[in-house]
């Protein structure tokens, strides 16, 4: 496998991962926290209405997890494609 091809495949895998993460990022904040907030507020978890919880708590927790998930998966990709740092 040529180095250029390897670089392209690595980049494609990265873009796919970014796409997945940004989709989750969008769903928890914009979809659950804003667009569907009224519908989700009909459900409650603990003492929170679900839509309100996503807008003021849940989305932030998911953001944190997302970044660590991305960092972890990228480290694996870096090694898999042998482009990691020494």
């Amino acid at each position, binding site marked *: 496998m040529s180095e250029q091809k390897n670089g392209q495949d*690595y980049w494609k895998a990265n873009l796919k991962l970014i796409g997945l993460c*940004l989709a989750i990022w969008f769903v928890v904040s914009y979809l659950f926290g804003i667009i569907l907030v009224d519908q989700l507020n009909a459900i409650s978890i603990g003492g929170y209405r679900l839509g309100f919880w996503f807008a003021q708590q849940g989305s*932030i*927790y998911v953001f944190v997890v997302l*970044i660590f998930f991305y960092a972890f998966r990228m480290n694996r990709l870096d090694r898999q494609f042998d482009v990691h740092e020494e």
Partner: protein
Amino acid sequence: MELQTLTYIVVGATFALYIGIAIWARASSTREFYVAGTGVHPVANGMATAADWMSAASFISMAGLIAFLGYDASVYLMGWTGGYVLLALLLAPYLRKFGKFTVPEFIGDRFYSKGARLVAVICLIVASITYVIGQMKGVGVAFGRFLEVPFEIGVLVGMGIVFIYAVLGGMKGITYTQIAQYCVLIFAYTVPAIFISLNLTGNPLPQIGLGSAMSDGSGVLLLDKLDQVVTDLGFAAYTAQKGSSLNIFLLTLSLMIGTAGLPHVIVRFFTVPKVSDARVSAGWALVFIAILYTTAPAVGAMARLNLMDTIQTGEVGAADGNLVYEERPQWFKNWETTGLLQFEDKNGDGRIQYYNDKDEAFAAKAASYGWEGNEMVKVDRDIMVLANPEIAQLPNWVIALVAAGGLAAALSTAAGLLLAISSAISHDLLKGMIAPNISEKKELLASRIAMAGAIVVAGYLGMNPPGFAAQVVALAFGLAASSLFPALMMGIFNKKMNREGAIAGMLAGLTSTLVYIFWFKGWFFIPGTEMAANSPANWFMGISPEAFGAVGALINFLVATAVSKVTAAPPEEIQHLVEHIRVPKGAAAAVDH
């Protein structure tokens, strides 16, 4: 001990700590001055980034905003945290791989154009200066309120402290003081919150307390009770959405991409040793930010409930349902003297009526109770955090701590902004354009002089804030969102993006956003020059000026793409540069400057 003596001791101790760190962390090279020698541990950088990011506004004002806007304040909570996801996924690792010192430097090299670099420098300086004015004001206010020193003296002391560690240590000194400042500010923020949550719900964790039942034995959920209490007095329900969905959506998006595009935040990720560190460091930054940002909604809701319950002591409309003015608590009196709380006995009954007299249906009902208008004529949002320890009857040392925390939040953000400004001047303008052959020693000296100059300018503007000071946050985020973020992102993700496209895009995004903001807020914020009243009825599709940054960014993307399609592709070596920054391997070599 006297509260004031105690406050002097606590604030003095934190300042001594910052100066001690400054002496320990002096910078001896430009690499140390600009990027702390790229030797900062990712967790440490995360903590420094959190302090850098959370300003006087986050510490003092945000919970107050939440208290009065309720659900609608979610835009700030999501907007100012979600940007870190964009930063970690789209910018930080690649800019770290690029391995140079400033954000304009990347734009200049990637788009092989000094013009592009200059546009970036201008955006950076305007955004950072406007932002730093607010911090300097915050320092002055905190000193004035807690230590009773004149506002100007407060700003001068703040300038002196920043001067010592920023001029001596550059990014290195700033990084380690920011870590200390983070510890001070987060402790000062969470301690009162824990006590208030315990008080109201019996649960020490504010994040859980906000979703718990009241501990008064009624079994009513705190948020339900709050909704009930505010709607009983004619205010909109706390947890209900009040603004338009489109505007809330776009404002959140503008704040997110503005956050990711702010140079003083981006440059923090230049300081870690490796590309993989840049990714994980953004995660740590958000952990440390989230501790405050998930506490703030609880502080806001609980403070609002405490305030309402203090004033409306009994049934709404009952003759003895309202607090007798002469029996008001001590904290109420304390804050009246600052002018941040103001009472006016409109119906002369000696009791306080606090309700929404703008709501016609409720105002009519209120009139039947013999109420003649809302008597809390001023309730400044900022007291929600500042008065919290007093409302919850916490010991004096907690109040002293809140003062130190507010100062830490303002100083840490100011230092980060000042570093971004001074490196743009000494590295991008002087070294990059005016005198490329300058020696490293001279550049280091120049960067120190630029830092000193920036501190003086910021201090001056903090003492004499231009009329637009209150509007500037919208401007800073609008600029970063509409000009810098798209240029950086396209520079990494679109190999064919060229000089012409990037410059045209930045200018189009910038101009459209500026014009939209000025249209409703006055040209250069000069009162009376606005073209239309700043109200939802006049806004384009109901989009507020603060929310327009996302539209400006879209315009930037579209214009840049269209222009790049009809002009020559970037040179071969630039396309190689893009391929190079996309892979982590070889980052160690890239930092040789």
